[in-house]
């Protein structure tokens, strides 16, 4: 046994969010931690990383009591962490982000060519060789930034590697290489603590599973002794009958018609039509240009040629579009503002804002999406857990009562029970005549929650498939540009 | 600053003495802080006068509010050490409303009403410098002028006008006005002079609107090795300038603008007015020309300014 937590409690100024957590991890084990949004997973991880002190409780490693006063202490003990939110310094090179504070030196000065070489070597050794260590981190796609985050934790071989939802932005081969990496680390005796909302991958990867609910461990189990449904039931505290709603197949008039849309360097000749009442999935590998295409349609970025895109977000919104972007921190939320101000952002009407109405509208949305905690309206949105922040973004757009909903990875970081709610909500919206474009890197989701699926590869639409008549393999094949 | 060294009589004298407010436009210049000190020193000498001094940091609005603060403290009269300020009608009006006498030192306002003014005649100082330079350059030559700025500073303007009124009519002399201001400091004088030397290597003399700038200009001339070619003329009688003149350097002349004299007279004047005396409205304090011959007589090695 190399790591043990005993009765760990954490309160943030009076509000306890962890109520006595016990946890044991062994060498060469993948220990999965699952739980609903806001259950306390990230908090637990911050404690392991030395980034937050525990309020009470003990941490033991190799039979010795340890106290982590800072991330530095955690590094010394061999505990390395990849956080849920990206933490790279965008202006600095990948190399520098990787080696930060620990550069190879020659006569006291940093030896940059050695540093780049070491970074390249490291990236290659863990299967991320496609990333050029000299590029600025901010210029990489979210997925690649996530890979750099993971690489950063492996600069010196850790004894404990903690990953908080590392797969949320990965798909396809990137996901494969992550899993391969985790298995290799396990063989080398590393304890991998793995947090994810994707239960399928947990069942595939984990040796043991810890279920957290409301700040307490309510179950410790193994993949062989449980199932997705079972886990969801434990996390949510109730049984979920059906994850994806049954879709009826009839569709109405065309709401959005895009023809030959091109934005040079990003995507080319994209054409599709979105009808009232339908949910269209858009699948593709990292960097296939889906997000850029959606942003362009929404008027956030100008198109080079083609028709169907709006000239500005204001125009798009006036025409009834809404865009839930993939990166809520950068383009979905104003983190310092309250939940209410965030949700009301798309519906500011003057000359004087009707505060009473705003309050009621927002309260209605918080209730409808069950954003936790329920009295969050005047809290800064940054205090919500990741999944609840995502719901706040959704709420903002739903309040604008769109006719076309562009959703870019809307379930990223969202727990299973909430996903089910979101699917049900999307379904309800579609039934009421709204057209939904659902961009997702989650194959199951893209098949389960939609009527048909568009697949993009390298900036082009390579296929269109009916959700009920296709297979994962078929979609994957299209996404790699191979025509099945 | 309200110190009294008249012994036992001090207390009684103070009980029925005066409180006089000093509103300085700025104190960040040796001339102005010298003035403030002279007023305080003179008050201490009198024994029954308390002085409250304020500094507006060169801000006209702050000067107004400082005067208001002084009035709040119920001073008997106010001395305004105007610095580079044209007028302060609102200040004078509020003083008038409060029925308090105002003595201006150094600076005479062109508008508004004041009780009495004591100060130098800046144009005359400029003239007397101009005359000296005309004599010192019998063969003529290029004379540069370094102004303190900004353009609304009429003290400097008067001095420059004085110099120009003489030199522009002197044959053989050409005038060069530096485009940039020296901001009344030695560092500014230095860099303006450096620029001048680059475009006009053939200067014969330089006049600066005050001694501080001249001292900087003199350094620049020394750095360029042109001490023999260019003579320097200033205004104020700052100690370092007096010393340079006495030592026989190329710093040849300044016009004494004696903060000590003006300040102490200003306080005397205020006290006289408060005592009910009829006083002269405007008093010009003479500004003797200081050259190598008489510099020793004005130089005080321990003096502040």
């Amino acid at each position: 046994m190399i790591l043990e937590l005993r009765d760990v409690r954490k309160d943030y100024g009076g509000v306890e969010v962890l109520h006595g957590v016990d946890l044991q991890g062994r060498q060469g084990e993948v220990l999965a931690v699952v739980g609903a949004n806001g259950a306390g997973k990230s908090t637990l991880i911050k404690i392991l990383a030395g980034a937050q002190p525990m309020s009470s409780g003990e941490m033991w490693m190799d039979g010795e009591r340890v106290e982590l006063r800072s991330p530095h202490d955690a590094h010394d003990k061999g505990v390395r962490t990849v956080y849920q939110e990206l933490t790279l310094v965008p202006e600095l090179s990948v190399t520098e982000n990787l080696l930060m504070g620990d550069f190879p030196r020659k006569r006291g000065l940093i030896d940059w060519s050695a540093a780049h070489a070491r970074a390249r070597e490291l990236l290659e050794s863990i299967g991320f060789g496609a990333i050029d260590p000299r590029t600025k981190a901010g210029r990489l796609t979210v997925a690649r930034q996530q890979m750099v985050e993971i690489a950063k934790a492996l600069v010196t071989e850790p004894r404990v590697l903690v990953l908080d939802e590392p797969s949320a932005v990965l798909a396809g081969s990137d996901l494969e290489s992550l899993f391969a990496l985790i298995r290799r680390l396990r063989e080398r005796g590393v304890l991998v603590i793995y947090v994810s909302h994707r239960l399928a991958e947990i069942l595939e990867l984990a040796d043991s599973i810890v279920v957290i609910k409301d700040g307490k461990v309510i179950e410790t189990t193994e993949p062989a002794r449980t199932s997705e449904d079972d886990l969801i039931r434990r996390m949510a505290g109730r049984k979920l009958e059906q994850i994806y709603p049954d879709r009826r197949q009839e569709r109405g008039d065309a709401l959005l018609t895009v023809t030959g849309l091109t934005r040079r360097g990003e995507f080319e000749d994209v054409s599709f039509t979105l009808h009232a009442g339908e949910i269209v999935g858009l699948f593709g590998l990292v960097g296939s240009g889906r997000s850029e295409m959606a942003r362009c349609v929404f008027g956030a970025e100008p198109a080079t040629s083609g028709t169907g895109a709006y000239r500005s977000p204001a125009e798009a919104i006036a025409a009834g579009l809404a865009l839930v972007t993939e990166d809520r921190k950068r383009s979905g939320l104003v983190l310092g503002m309250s939940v209410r101000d965030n949700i009301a952002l798309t519906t500011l009407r003057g000359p004087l804002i009707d505060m009473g109405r705003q309050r009621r509208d927002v309260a209605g949305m918080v209730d409808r999406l069950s954003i936790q905690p329920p009295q969050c309206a005047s809290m800064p949105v940054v205090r919500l857990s990741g999944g609840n922040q995502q719901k706040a973004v959704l709420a903002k757009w739903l309040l604008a009562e769109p006719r076309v909903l562009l959703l870019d990875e809307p379930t990223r970081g969202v727990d299973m029970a909430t996903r089910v709610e979101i699917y049900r909500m999307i379904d309800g919206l579609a039934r009421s005549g709204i057209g939904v474009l659902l961009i997702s890197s989650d194959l199951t989701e893209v098949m389960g929650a939609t009527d048909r699926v568009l697949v993009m590869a390298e900036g082009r639409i390579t296929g269109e498939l009916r959700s009920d008549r296709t297979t994962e393999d078929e979609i994957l094949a299209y996404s790699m540009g191979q025509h099945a | 600053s309200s110190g009294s060294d008249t012994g036992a009589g001090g207390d009684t004298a103070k009980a029925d003495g005066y409180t006089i407010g000093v509103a300085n436009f700025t104190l960040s210049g040796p001339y102005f802080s010298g003035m403030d000190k002279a007023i305080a020193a003179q008050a201490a000498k009198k024994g029954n006068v308390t002085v409250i001094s304020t500094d507006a940091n060169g801000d006209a609005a702050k000067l107004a509010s400082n005067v208001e603060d002084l009035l709040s403290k119920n001073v008997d009269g106010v001395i305004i050490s105007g610095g580079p300020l044209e007028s302060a009608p609102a200040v004078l009006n509020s003083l008038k409303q409060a029925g308090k006498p105002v003595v201006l030192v150094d600076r005479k306002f062109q508008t508004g009403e004041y009780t009495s003014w004591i100060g130098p005649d800046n144009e005359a100082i400029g003239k007397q410098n101009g005359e000296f330079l005309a004599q010192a350059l019998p063969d003529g030559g290029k004379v540069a002028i370094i102004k303190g700025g900004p353009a609304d500073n009429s003290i400097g303007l008067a001095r420059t006008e004085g110099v120009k009124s003489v030199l522009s009519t002197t044959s053989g002399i050409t005038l060069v006005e530096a485009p940039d201001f020296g901001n009344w400091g030695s560092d500014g004088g230095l860099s303006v002079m450096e620029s001048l030397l680059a475009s006009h290597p053939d200067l014969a003399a330089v006049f600066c609107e005050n001694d501080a700038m001249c001292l900087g200009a003199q350094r620049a001339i020394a750095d360029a090795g042109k001490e023999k070619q260019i003579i320097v003329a200033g205004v104020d009688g700052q100690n370092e300038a007096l010393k340079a003149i006495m030592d026989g350097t190329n710093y040849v002349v300044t016009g004494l603008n004696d903060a000590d004299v003006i300040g102490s007279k200003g306080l005397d004047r205020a006290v006289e007015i408060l005592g009910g005396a009829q006083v002269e409205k405007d008093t010009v304090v003479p500004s003797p020309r200081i050259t190598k011959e008489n510099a020793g007589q004005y130089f005080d090695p321990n003096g502040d300014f």
Partner: protein
Amino acid sequence: MIGQLSKAAGRFPRLVVGGRDLTLEVAFTALILLLVAVAATTSDTFLTQTNITNVLKQMVTTGLLAFGMLVVILTGGIDLSVGSVVALSGILTAGLVSGLPIPVAMGVGIIAGLAAGLVNGTLVARFALAPFVVTLASLTTVRGLAFVYSEVPIAPEDPAFFTLGSALLGPIPVSTLIMLVVFVAGGVFLSRTPAGRSIIAIGGNAETVRLAGINVRRHVILAYAISGACAGLAGVILASRVGIAQPSVGVAFELDAIAACVIGGASLAGGRGSVRATFGGVLVLVLINNLLNLYGVQSFWQQVLKGLIIIAVILVQRTPRST
């Protein structure tokens, strides 16, 4: 930042009323009251009517500039040009009163400030230039223009010109009332109008606001225009109060305005700042000056102390805030 809870941060008890955390405002108000109490008990003069009227008058310029500055700061920008705008609008107004009716001349002064703000805003928003340099450049240019308009101070003869700056309504100066109106209207603007909310949100995350269909550029320009107009108004009032307009007035005024905002808890990164607390910041600065004068502290020591007091104030004020 990451993963830190504001509600959780303090060892201090917090005061929450109607879902809003008022701890900071209460602490800040207490601080100002303490300052006033100290002043009242240690100085005979402080509570006299003359002195109170003084303090009220002395707030006007810093107050107007601070409000405009706050609006710009909320967008994540800064406006260094306000001092120069004060000079330009003042000298323009004073120059024009000889030919135009006084209110018109004053209107022109304010419009000049507005125009300067529009230029600043356009350069910042349309050309994506750094606000600091843009307004630093316009600090220089506008000051130059003030001198180009008139190298010498202008003192209008007509006593009606002084009214705006010196008239009293009961014990309260009219100019102070104008400033208060600006603060109240400004508070409503920022908290209750779409434009105001948008300006605050832009400072928090401009991209999010843009994607919400709000015209970010137009709102940024609006913010600088507001700051310019406030500076113009301040310049007009100042010229009227002093009775003479100088092209050299207003140097470093921007620093006090910024200080007032930050003492009031505004973040120079944008998105955070309150009208009421900025007003408190103005009060703190003016009270410090007034007190040091009333105590007769010597000028240079005043400077030394003023800096130390500002540090003390933001230290005290920071304590109950979550870090």
